[in-house]
Structure formats: structure tokens, C-alpha cells
């Protein structure tokens, strides 16, 4: 049983006041997320990521298609008790303190009374808001709000966690903290479905990603596969400005900057290149294998014509 199963979910809004025009926010989407996976939902702003999440949360209703979470319908309260959700740029009841807010949400999620205060206290500590427990949310900084947001999403120990742009608007420290929290969730065996347009986050955290643009699924794949599909190259950097003649014959590219040279050449010539540098007594700074980045994959998928997108999607699903 998959954690999330999306079967042709589709959303068309009608926009305009007088003469309604249809606006297709999401084309029929098919997607399956297995239990325990960390799944990244990638796409530029306005691609349909939030729409998908709102459909899954039952906040908007699909034009057609359906979806199941934990094998239950989207309007099933039993399912809702087993999932957590962090909306994009969350905003909470600012007249409540951190503790009151989490307590309210714990009540709504059906956390038993006995467990509640303990659970709230642990959660505040876990997201580093122990000291702010009795501070009203109107005095919270953006980062603190985001952390409260994550706390409310995982407060009731859900099996599946949906996070909409969890890192947006955070400073580097905050991003690292959120990243660590997500890694913890992964270790706890939870399914995490999160949307982002920040690729490095996705690359660092995800098992699989889907790329979406203009309401259309453009591709799905495992990170490990995506980043190793292109043949390897290496990057060598050494001190100096000299480029040995032997290297020049090696089908390589050279970039001279300041007092170092950077060369990019095929992987199989690594040994020969290193020998040459040693022979010439040049000071080696680094050697890095280059792989195709998620970025390349992403850009390729986002920009590709929409016609073959369905094909790719179908392939990705299989």
C-alpha cells in the first residue's frame, strides 16, 4: 500500500468576474509515493505545487480524478489524524502562545488529554522553542513561526507529513535546522512529501523527486538515478598558470583564474593527468568527480516541450 496515491487529480479554476474563463491549475496528475520515502515536489513558482497539496488536504476540490492517502479517501477524518501539514508561509493564531497553539492543535488532532501537555512540551523543545512557550505568536520572528509550523505538523506523530515550501524565507541557520528536522523524520520512518523550488534542499534530502511546471508533471525519478545518468567527468585544480603540453592533448577544457588552473576532462584520463602534474611538479589542489546535477535535470524537464511530458511522467511512474 503506497502512502500517497494520486489518480488523475485535476483542477480547473474559473477566473474572471463577468465572463468566466477556465484556468487549468493542474492537469491530470498521476503519482505514487511509497511509505518511508522522502519525496520532493519540484517546480517554479506557480507551477501547481501548492494546488496539489491543497487538493490532497481537501482545502480545494478536484475538477476530476481522485487520490488516496494511507489508502483512505481525502475527506476521511481517520486519515487526517495520521497526517501532518505545513502550509506555505504559515500564519497562526497570533493571540495564542506557542504552547497554547500546539495544545489547541493537539486537541483537534485527537491527542488524548493525558499525553497532550507532555507531547507539546517535547515538541517545543525539539524545534528549539522551549523558551518561547509562553510568548504570544505575534512576537515571533519568521523563523520561529516556521518552526512552530513544523512542530504543529508533526505534533500528533503523523505517518505522512506534507510540507509546502518548508525552507522558504528562512536564513541559512534556519534552513539547516529545518533540514535536520526532516532528516530526523526520515530516520523515524515517516513519509515526507514536500514541495520546494530550492534544488539543493531536494538533492540533499529526497529519495525521489517529481518535477512539475505549468500544472503538468514533467518527470519523476530517484535522485541516485538522475544524478548518475550522464557519463562522468572530473575536475582537477592546481596552483600556477602553466598548462602542461601533455594535458593539452587530453580533450580537456581549461580555465585560468588568478594563480590556479581548473581543468575538466573525461574520467578515464584521470590517471594520466595526475601523472603529468606530478611529473611537472605542479601543486595539486583538488580532484573532484563531476556528475550531472539535479539542477541540470530540473532545467531540462522544466523547459522541455509539454508534449512529451506525459510520456516521461508515465515512464517515471512505472
Amino acid at each position: 500500500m503506497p502512502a500517497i496515491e494520486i489518480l488523475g487529480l485535476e483542477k480547473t479554476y474559473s477566473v474572471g468576474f463577468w465572463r468566466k474563463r477556465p484556468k487549468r491549475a493542474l492537469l491530470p496528475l498521476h503519482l505514487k509515493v511509497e511509505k518511508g520515502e522522502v519525496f520532493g515536489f519540484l517546480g517554479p513558482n506557480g507551477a501547481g505545487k501548492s494546488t496539489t497539496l491543497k487538493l490532497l488536504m481537501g482545502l480545494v476540490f478536484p475538477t476530476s480524478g481522485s487520490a488516496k492517502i494511507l489508502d483512505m479517501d481525502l475527506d476521511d477524518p481517520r486519515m487526517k489524524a495520521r497526517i501532518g501539514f505545513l502550509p506555505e508561509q504559515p500564519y497562526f493564531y497570533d493571540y495564542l502562545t506557542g504552547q497554547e497553539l500546539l495544545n489547541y492543535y493537539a486537541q483537534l488532532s485527537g491527542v488524548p488529554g493525558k499525553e497532550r501537555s507532555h507531547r507539546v512540551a517535547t515538541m517545543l523543545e525539539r524545534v528549539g522553542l522551549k523558551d518561547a512557550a509562553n510568548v504570544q505568536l505575534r512576537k515571533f520572528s519568521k523563523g520561529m513561526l516556521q518552526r512552530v509550523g513544523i512542530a504543529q505538523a508533526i505534533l500528533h506523530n503523523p505517518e505522512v507529513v506534507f510540507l509546502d515550501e518548508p525552507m522558504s524565507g528562512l536564513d541559512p541557520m534556519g534552513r539547516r535546522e529545518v533540514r535536520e528536522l526532516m532528516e530526523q523524520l526520515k530516520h523515524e520512518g515517516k513519509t515526507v512529501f514536500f514541495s520546494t523550488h530550492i534544488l539543493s534542499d531536494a538533492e540533499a534530502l529526497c529519495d525521489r523527486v517529481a518535477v512539475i511546471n505549468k500544472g503538468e508533471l514533467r518527470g519523476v525519478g530517484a535522485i541516485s538515478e538522475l544524478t548518475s545518468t550522464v557519463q562522468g567527468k572530473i575536475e582537477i585544480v592546481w596552483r600556477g598558470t602553466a598548462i602542461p603540453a601533455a594535458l593539452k592533448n587530453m580533450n580537456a577544457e581549461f580555465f585560468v583564474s588568478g594563480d590556479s588552473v581548473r581543468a575538466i576532462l573525461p574520467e578515464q584520463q584521470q590517471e594520466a593527468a595526475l601523472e603529468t602534474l606530478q611529473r611537472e611538479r605542479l601543486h595539486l589542489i583538488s580532484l573532484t568527480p563531476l556528475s550531472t546535477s539535479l539542477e541540470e535535470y530540473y532545467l531540462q524537464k522544466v523547459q522541455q516541450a509539454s508534449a512529451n511530458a506525459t510520456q516521461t511522467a508515465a515512464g517515471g511512474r512505472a
Partner: protein
Amino acid sequence: MSARIAYIASNTFREAVRDRVLYNLIAFALLMSGAAILVGQVSFGIERLVVVNLGLSAVSLFGIVIAIFIGIGLVSKEIEKRTLYTVLSRPVQRWEFIVGKFFGLAGTLAVNTFLMAIGVFAALLYVSRQFHGTDGWIAVALYFSILQFLMMTALALFFSSFASPLMAAVFAFALFVIGNFSEDLRGFAAMTHGLQRWLATGAAYLLPNFSALNIITSVAHEQPVSSSLIFYNTIYALVYTAMVMAAGVLIFQRRNLK
């Protein structure tokens, strides 16, 4: 009823209190004490009448204003600030949310009215030195005011489930005014003929009927209120409130929360 409704209701109550809604009581207290002192010195023989009329009218007006202006924000504010997202992604059904919000505001108004009632009776005691048997009818008038607040809260919630806050406020206030003339409207409808009569009568009956719930003047004149009027007014107000709430749920149930 589900515990979640109670949780939402108590959070709504907490919000109202923290947003200083009950501060209106200060204005009310000033009004009542000022009126009691002033009327004791100025008028002759109608002190009680003035205090009861003024007190009950102020209770009604303050309550209606709170019911409308808090009521229209109950849902729309949560949509606008997206706080609703984190509520509805939990095992909370939409109708539970609406009903919980209703009870939260209704509770706020009940507490508010109770505190105001103390003020009215205190002012009454000040001007007439003692309570009379007929003063019990004032409590009935206050109770009818609360019934009106229930209907107004439901109407404000209903309008805010599909209209913008400003429009919802306009609609709700218009219905409050019309509701006070609903007997006349039913009279107008009865004067038309044929199909028009059916349509007009139907519309007139769908409007809230506040005139039967407004007994301030007759109470001020120490007129008794029949127990059957209390009974039927209670049932009517509850049934009307339930009707409006059901309509609100039907609309909100289908609404896309963009």
C-alpha cells in the same frame, strides 16, 4: 457532539477575549452609571422607564454590533490568514468548524450579555431603591436579546461563508433592519395577489423576524410577557438559527479555499 466543536468554540471565545471584545463592557458601564445618576436628578417619576429602555436598548445594540462584526470575520479571517489550512488538514470536518465558531461567538455574547444584565439591574436598583415583581420581565427581554444575537451570529456566519467581509457586514446589517420590520413585510406580501403573493410571502417568511423578540418597550411599561410567547419565540429563534447554519454549512462545504 464532537469534542472538536467544543475546542473550536473555546478557542473562538479565547480569541474574542484576547482581542478585547469585552472592552465594550467599559463603555456600557459608563453609559449605565452616567444614565442612572443623571436620570435620578433630572426626570420625575420615569427614572425606571428611562433606565430600562436605555439599558435594554444598549444591550441589544452592543450585542448586535458584536454579532455582526465579529461574526463576519470568524470564517473570512481564517481563510485570509490561512489559519484554516492547519485546522482543516486535521480530523476536523468543515461543518464542525462552522458550528464550533458559532458556539464560540454565541458563548462570548452570552457572557457579555450576562455581565451587561448585571449592570442594568444595578442601575435599576440605584434609581428605584428596590426590585419589584415586574422586574423579572426585564430578564425575559434580555433573554430575547440573546435569542436575537444567536440569529444574527448565524446570519453573519452565513454571509461570511461566501461574501467578502464588507459585503457580509452590509448584508447582515440590512437583514437586521429588515428583520425589525418583518411583520410589515408580511403585511405587504399579503396585499399582493397571485404568483406575486406566493413569492413575496415566501421571501417575507425567510427573513428573520425580530419584532416579536423586541419587547423592550412593553417590558419598560411593566407589561407581562405570556409564557407561550417565550416558548414559541425560543423555538422559533433556535429553528431559524439552525436553518441559517445549515445553509451556511451547505455553502462552506463546497467552497474552494484558494
